[in-house]
C-alpha cells in the first residue's frame, strides 16, 4: 500500500446521500479478476448523463470526492474502492460511511474522512461554487483545509499509523503468528471443519 501523508487537490462535489456500491461500480464490472481497470465503471449509470458532475470538464483531474451521508452502503465489493482510486480519487469526505466500504478504503490507502454534516455542507458549497477550489486532506495533522475552512477529523490511531507508513496488515499480523498457533491449540474439537464428509 502507498503511504498517505497529506494530499491537496480539486474536488468533485457529489450532492447525494446513500450512494451505494452498486452505483459506484455496477455488478457487471465485478467479473474482472484484477485490481485495476475499473475507472470506466465508476458511477457508470450516472455518467451516461452529460450533466453529471463527473462529466463536467472543469472537474477533470479532481482527486477529492465530497459527498452526502451513508456513502458506500450495500455490497462488500472492494472494487468500489479500486474504481475510485483507478479514476484518480485519493480521498473521500462525507459525514457517514458504510462500515465495510470504510474498512476497505483504509486498507487500500483511499482516505475516507468523516466530518460533521455542516462542515461537509460547507465544503460542498465551496467546491460547487468554485471548481478550482483546492481541498487539502492532511493525515499527519488530521485536518481538512480549504478556503475559509479548517476542520479536524478523527481516525483510529492504529489505522492512521498504518496509512502514514503504508503498512500492510497481513505482514503485521504474521509477526504474531505464534499467538495464532497457541489459540488454535485451544479450539474445541466440536468446531466445524470444511473437509468433505465421507
Amino acid at each position, binding site marked *: 500500500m502507498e503511504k498517505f501523508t497529506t494530499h491537496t487537490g480539486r474536488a468533485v462535489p457529489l450532492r447525494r446521500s446513500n450512494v451505494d456500491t452498486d452505483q459506484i461500480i455496477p*455488478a457487471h464490472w465485478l467479473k474482472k*479478476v484484477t485490481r485495476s481497470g475499473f475507472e470506466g465503471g465508476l458511477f457508470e449509470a450516472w455518467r451516461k448523463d452529460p450533466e453529471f458532475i463527473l462529466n463536467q470538464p472543469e472537474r477533470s483531474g479532481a482527486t477529492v470526492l465530497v459527498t452526502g451521508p451513508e456513502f458506500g452502503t450495500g*455490497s462488500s465489493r472492494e472494487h468500489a474502492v479500486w474504481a475510485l482510486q483507478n479514476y484518480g480519487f485519493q480521498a473521500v469526505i462525507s459525514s457517514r460511511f458504510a462500515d465495510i466500504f470504510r474498512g476497505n478504503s483504509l*486498507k487500500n490507502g483511499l482516505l475516507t474522512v468523516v466530518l460533521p454534516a455542516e462542515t461537509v455542507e460547507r465544503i460542498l458549497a465551496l467546491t460547487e461554487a468554485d471548481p478550482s477550489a483546492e481541498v487539502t486532506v492532511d493525515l499527519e495533522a488530521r485536518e481538512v483545509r480549504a478556503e475559509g475552512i479548517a476542520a479536524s477529523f478523527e481516525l483510529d490511531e492504529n489505522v492512521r499509523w498504518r496509512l502514514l507508513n503504508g503498512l500492510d496488515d497481513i505482514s503485521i499480523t504474521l509477526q*504474531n503468528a505464534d499467538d495464532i498457533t497457541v489459540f488454535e491449540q485451544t479450539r*474445541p474439537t466440536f468446531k*466445524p471443519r*470444511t*473437509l468433505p464428509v465421507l
Partner: protein
Amino acid sequence: MGRTLAEKVWDDHVVRRAEGEPDLLYIDLHLLHEVTSPQAFDGLRLAGRTVRRTDLTIATEDHNTPTLDIDKPIADPVSKVQLETLRRNAAEFGVRIHSLGDVEQGVVHVVGPQLGLTQPGTTVVCGDSHTSTHGAFGALAFGIGTSQVEHVLATQTLPLAPFRTMAITVEGELPEGVTAKDLILAIITRIGTGGGQGYVLEYRGSAIRGLSMEARMTICNMSIEAGARAGMIAPDRTTFDYLQGRPHAPQGADWDAAVAYWETLVTDEDAVFDAEVVIDASELTPFVTWGTNPGQGAPLGASVPDPASFEDPQERVAAENALKYMGLQAGTPLREVKVDAVFVGSCTNGRIEDLRAAAAVLDGRQVADGVRMLVVPGSVRVALQAVEEGLDKVFTAAGAEWRHAGCSMCLGMNPDQLAPGERCASTSNRNFEGRQGKGGRTHLVSPQVAAATAVLGRLAAPVDLSSNVAVEV
C-alpha cells in the same frame, strides 16, 4: 457486569489483545465465492503465501452462474473466466469447492447453513455483505472486502475494530400473512439504512423466538441493509434441531459438548446494550419498498409517500430522486403499482420455506398476462427438495419459470436481468438503482407478496386473492 451474546462470541475468539491495537480475532469459517476472491488469491501468490487453514475454508459458485442450460459452456466469456479462476485457485491452494453442476452448489449463504457448517458461537466471514445471514445461528458473521479475504486466507484471523451492541426486541406474534421479510423491512425503514452503523444487532423477544431458522436467516441477512456490522439471534432448541444430523454438525460426544457450550450463548440478564429498539409484532402488516434503498419502505396498504412529507432535507431529496427513478407518483396506492416481473429467490428468500410459501399462494392460480415470474432456488439442495415436494410443478403450471440455483436476478451478474424501465417485485434484499439490471426498478417484498403480485400483476398480498379474479382497483 453481564455480557451480550455478541460480546461472548467475540471474547471467545480473541487471539491477541494489545493496547492501541484492534483485537485480532480468530475466524472459524471462511466462505468464498468467485467475485471477491480472485484478487485475494493473486495477493497470496504474489507474496508466496499459502492458505493457513484449508479445513476452515470452502468455496462455491453463485453470482455469475447461469440458471439455464447449465450443462452447456457458460456463454458469457468474462463470467466464464471468473468461475474458472476460482476453480484454478481452489485447486492450487487446496480449497474445497462446489462448482456449477455439483449437488452442494448454491448461494454461499444458503450452502453454509444447510451443510451444518454455520454453527452457534462461531465466527464466520465471507467477501460478501450478506454474510450477516449466518448470525441467525448465534454466530458472529460479517461481510469483508477482498483485502480482508486475503488476510483471512493467509492468517485465519482478522484485526477488527470494536463494535457497539443494539437490541432489537420484537414482542408479540406476527399476524397471519406477515412474515420475517415484512418484519425486517419494517425495522430497516424504522432505523434507516445507517441506523445500525457500528452495531451488532441482536434480534430478540418472543416474536423472534417463535421463528423458524429460515425466517431467522431472512432477518439476519438484511441486517447489513440497516448498515449494521452484523445481526445475531441467540441459539435455542430451534437452532439445535435444525443443525442436528447435518453433514458437518458435531456428532456423539462432540454434539453434547457443543450443545452445552451453545446453551451458554445468550445475553446475560444484567448485560447492557448500547441501544435498544422495541417493536410490537402484532402491529405489522405486509411491507414493501417504494424507493431505491431498503429504508424507503411502507406498508402495502399505504401510498407512495410525498417527498415533501420528509422533514430531513437529505431524505427529501433522496425520496425525490427515488420516485423519479422508480417512475412513481406520490400518493399512488402501492396496491395499484403494476409490475412486469417477479423474482423469487436469493440468500434472503431462496430457501425451501420461501418456495413453499410462494407455491402455496400460486397453487391453482395463474401468473398474470404480461408478467414474467422467475423462481430461482437458493441452492441445488433446495431445488431437489422443492422437486420432491412437487413445488416446481406448481410454479410451472402457474406460468412461472423454474430455474437452476444461484444469485440470478438478485444482482443480475448472469443473464437474468430486468430491461430498462421494467418493474419487479423481488424477494431479494436490495432495491438499488440498476441492481437487477440497468434501469430496472425493484420493489422488495416477501415470497407471499411476490406470488400474490405475480397473480394480480400489481403489488398485492395473498388476502387480495379471495378469488382468482383480479380485484378491481
